[in-house]
């Protein structure tokens, strides 16, 4: 049987696994990465790659497929970015792009987002864990009193631990203002009052334990009760107090999304392994990254906000000596086509889109993979979803081929994913 390159790409996109004859050699570079924490910036809705990280010639109007903006040069030779990403452009020597990530879920946001968090489509037999839960399972947190996995966004199945179980779940917050759900007491409970409460509870707990001192279940319950309140203690909760940062730094991070990135840096500094930061501030342009119809008119506000936050985050991580071991990943569920819809916006495109990696030992200054002149088909080097995740896990020193176990069933961390080796070494 003779296959053309086009056939291969088609097969790969449909089945999400490259036939062996064409796949890269075994993951020799896998599990060698140096990153010990990851900040996963999630551009929910489907960020258009040609309007951000893979700019093409500028469109002349609604009937002319192309980028919505001009492009600019960057600190890396031969790499151009959207004009609204000057901060990232100046730091492109420290960033790497995967410009040919690809899958076949083109219409459903939920299913595609799930894929870009778990690396797999739902099978109906087991629930696959999220990338954050896998990192939590493999690396744990750096300290007992800090959770391994924190989400800034809404709790939902794509972020869940699946078969890895509740111990690999996450702490989440939807707004900086309200703080992490469950960790801080109700707003009317002062520190003093909380102390009084815990004294009352401590006595009830001690008495109960004394009455059941040989009971393993009671002992376990009493232990997590104490451990929980330690976790909610000042050491970890102070991480959420952005006021303790200098006002100049807070101002440098600017927007609500920037503040989330600042919090992510503080969490990583405190020992959290995986922080997902959702960029879901849809009110900036009316649609978020899902720029159908006139949502595209103010898309640049999102891009500028993103640019500013990433640039500040990179600098801030560097200043805190965290950049070399903290990897930033910017991901989305799919890209968007070069053509415009009836009202000038864009539809969805899952066949080729971009993700960005920076820090954590990733080799910057490069863009891996190439799309055609309007960014719609892959010209060179497809990155499958398993490859994308293998790259992420490999960079964190996690073997992407390692088996996890859903009761007795072996489930490899990625579906035969091969790390994109250019990002290593």
């Amino acid at each position, binding site marked *: 049987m003779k296959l053309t390159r086009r056939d291969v790409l088609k097969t790969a996109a449909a089945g999400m696994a490259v036939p*062996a004859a064409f796949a890269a050699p075994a993951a020799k570079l896998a599990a060698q990465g140096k990153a010990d924490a990851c900040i996963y910036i999630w551009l929910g809705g489907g960020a258009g790659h040609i309007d951000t990280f893979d700019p093409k010639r500028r469109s002349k109007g609604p009937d002319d497929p192309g980028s919505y903006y001009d492009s600019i040069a960057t600190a890396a030779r031969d790499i151009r970015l959207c004009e609204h990403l000057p901060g990232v452009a100046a730091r492109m020597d420290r960033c790497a792009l995967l410009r040919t990530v690809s899958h076949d879920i083109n219409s459903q946001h*939920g299913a595609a987002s799930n894929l870009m968090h778990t690396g797999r489509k739902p099978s*109906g037999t087991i629930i696959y864990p999220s990338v954050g839960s896998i990192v939590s399972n493999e690396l744990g947190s750096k300290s007992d009193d800090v959770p391994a996995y924190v989400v800034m966004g809404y*709790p939902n199945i794509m972020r869940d631990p699946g078969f890895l179980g509740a*111990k690999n779940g996450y702490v989440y917050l939807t707004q900086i203002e309200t703080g992490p759900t*469950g*960790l801080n007491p109700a707003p009317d409970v002062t520190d003093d009052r909380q102390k009084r409460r815990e004294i009352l509870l401590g006595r009830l707990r001690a008495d109960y334990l004394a009455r059941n001192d040989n009971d*393993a279940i009671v002992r376990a319950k*009493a232990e997590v009760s104490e451990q929980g309140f330690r976790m909610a203690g000042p050491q970890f909760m102070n991480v959420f107090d952005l006021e303790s940062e200098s006002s100049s730094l807070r101002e440098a991070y600017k927007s609500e999304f920037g503040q989330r990135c600042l919090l992510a840096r503080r969490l990583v500094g405190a020992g959290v392994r995986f922080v997902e930061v959702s960029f879901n501030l*849809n009110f900036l342009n009316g649609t978020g990254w899902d720029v159908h119809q006139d949502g595209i008119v103010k898309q640049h506000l999102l891009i500028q906000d993103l640019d500013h936050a990433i640039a500040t985050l990179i600098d801030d991580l560097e200043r805190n000596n965290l950049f070399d071991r903290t990897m930033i990943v910017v991901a989305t569920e799919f890209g968007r086509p070069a053509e415009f819809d009836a009202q000038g916006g864009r539809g969805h495109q899952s066949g080729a889109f971009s993700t960005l990696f920076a820090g954590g030992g990733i080799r910057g200054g490069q863009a891996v993979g190439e799309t055609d002149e309007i960014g719609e088909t892959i010209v060179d080097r497809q990155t499958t979803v398993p490859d994308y995740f293998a790259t992420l896990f490999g960079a964190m020193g996690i073997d992407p081929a390692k088996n996890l176990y859903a009761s007795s069933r072996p489930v490899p961390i990625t579906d035969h994913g091969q790390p994109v080796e250019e990002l290593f070494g």
Partner: protein
Amino acid sequence: MSFHRNKCLTAFHIVGCMVMASFIASPIVASDEAVQIRLFEDQSEANWLAPEGVPTFSYTEPAFGFTRIPVSFTSNALPLDRSWPFSLEATMTTVLEAGEYQFRLRSRALAVFAVDGKSLLQTKALAPNTASHEALPEAPADLGPVRALHAPHHDAVITLHLDAGEHTFLLVAVIGGKGLSPTPGELSVSMARAGEIDRLIGGKDAPLLTDAGWEGFAMAQDLRHERDDIARRRASDDAVEKAWAERHAKIRTWMESRPGPTVPDVADSDSIFNKVDRFINARLADASIEPLPLTSDTEFLRRLSLDTTGLVPSEKQIESFLSEPAELRRATAIERFLSDDSWADSWIPYWQDVLAENPGILKPDLNNTGPFRWYLHQALSDGYSYDRIAVELVEMEGSLAKGAPAGFSMASLNDAPMAAKADILSQAFLANKLSCARCHDAPFHPFKQKDLFSMAAMLEGKPIVLPESSTVPVREGGRQPFVKITLKAGESIDPHWPFEDVMRDIIVAAPPRNTSVDSRYALASTMVSPANTRFQRVIVNRVWARFMGAGIVDSLGDWSKATPTHPELLDYLAREFVINGYDLKHISRLILSSHTYQRKPDPADPKSPGEAGELFAGPRRRYMSAEQVVDSLHLVAGKSLDSEELNLNPRGDRALRQFLNMGTPKRAWEATALSNERDRPSLALPRAQAIVDLLSAYGWQQSRQGPSSARDDGPSPMQTLALANGATGTRGVRLSDDSFFTHLTLQDRSLDEMIDTVFLRALTRQPTDAERTMMVGYLEPYFADRVVPLADRDIGLAKGKKTDSRVSWANHFDPESTRIRMEEERNVRMGDMPTDSLTTEFREHFEDVVWAIVNSPEFTTIP
């Protein structure tokens, strides 16, 4: 003043009317007692407003207000979808005084209102909506005391003069539309004379069209319809019930002619209450292990109550339990709790997990099912035999969106849904785990991929073609997979009973049939045939495990390598189950009445029980389930669950299957995944999220993409914090006006009594002396002056509207929608408004006491 026949039926009313008459006298001189309603289905579009033929429903309502329509049922008692759309006709004749009258027709869809045969008012049709970029509607116009309009409702209003005498009112309304929610929204017709507030046209109790009037009326209508629907449902399947009873009689005769297991011959003793104990104690005696002693009576009550109702016992239940003579207490309680209405609620979460019920409220795309939770509730509360439940799930009939077993057939974005269903059914009812066979021959199980797909083809009713995704890619030159692959993608597999080795294809006393798909019926009949002892043994083992903390066969859904600890007991229970018509309650009664169930829990870690644990010297110690925690917390606080309607299209103008309406939860099992994979604040349901947060921490899975027989709900630090700090826990503890504890502490009772009551409600026991002393000492300084004098209370304090009903999918991109929901999130975090009847010092200290008690590990551990 004219004689108001309908307003003045009692002395009380007469007084009321005399006082009111000069202000807002009802213009209705005389009327029919009720509004006559007829529903017409399958009408051509031309007849929507003038329906013809025989109505499918005729009934009455007290007034021209409609929020709910009777459900129609199949002869098998399954809810059915109506034609799209259907027409509702409402008529009433009334004698009026002469005068000017204003009529208001309020509807979100096409409707027409006529007086004396003359059309006066019309509203426009509900346009199916697919937009998501609409602007948030303006805040509804202020209509004074009249209830504001909720988009997309509109009002048509006319004022006209009517002569004195008899007048006939007629409303014809179109309900639903192709694929749309078949609900009327807030359909109403009201009338008013100059200077009056609109009142719904109707009988003597017709409410004013104010918020309070409408909400009270709607709630009453909902309750009435709920009751009537259930009555009609129960009456609709008498013939089917009879057919099942005949099957069970035949099976009983058949079974009794066959020998049953021998009950071990052990000497009578205090630790033997029934035959179950003889099986257990015989094995214990062989191993020289003593049975554990009985729990205390109140510990037993708490355990029994959680196991049969999902709730801690109420004060009243504790009181009546303790008032029984000691020797009768337990037996009486078992009977009482088995017939409690919450029996169904206590079991639903278990079957939701086992059967992978996985509805999505927003464009389901992650292996989602329909909400067949409602079928489970129906089946368990109407007392269906378990073989009937299994057969009806296989038959997959009824309405998908209303939660009939058709919902079980759905598996969104799954390219082999029936293979997924075959695996679920096979694990649930036969303990044959076929999951691995989805993509290859199972390496550790006796099943081939073909087995799963032949069963799937039986469900499909025709051969199934193996999809490419259900294979393991074999790479040229690559490592040979460890698993064996005997089927190729694209291969066609015929319907065929796959388990000849384990279970023969023999049918005894065929069950009643309710499907046109032959192979589905064949599958169901074989599965529940008593000749296949597997089904009955698997189910009784599941019941045993729920009550005892571990199965006789430990692995509940996979018996491939199973060795029962007590095979004869399993056979005994299975035989009892079959002889008694597959009645879950019969088996439950046997287990709950045993000394074994009523013993102190085994103290070993249930994950590594010693020999005593494995032989059931006592039951395994268990934690409360997520649903038990949430429901019990609310029961203790005397509060109902606080949630939005689980529905992202309250407007009702979108395809129902894309935007399921899961209603407003009353029990924790009614919660659902909030499906915000899009991560959009405007799609959040903050009040429901607070419940989901607590449930999730305790091991409830928001998504059930596959079946599960045991939850991962071991203790975790986050669990502790979710209850202690989360919004639901905060609500439970808060002394707001609707808290039981507010009412308790406003009473003229001693502090000791109050403390005792909190312990009793929360922990089903009295406090120890040390506990009482500690709590009294904590509260004493604030106790005497705790009540705020009436004059100082902030009466009429605005409680604030909790949920802005304007926000929906249609406008969720509007920045204002985002702002509104984010503000609601912050409000939920604040918890309920504290009562102003108690001083802040006392209230806060009392909240601290309640907080400490419900956060004690004792609250969430089953005795």
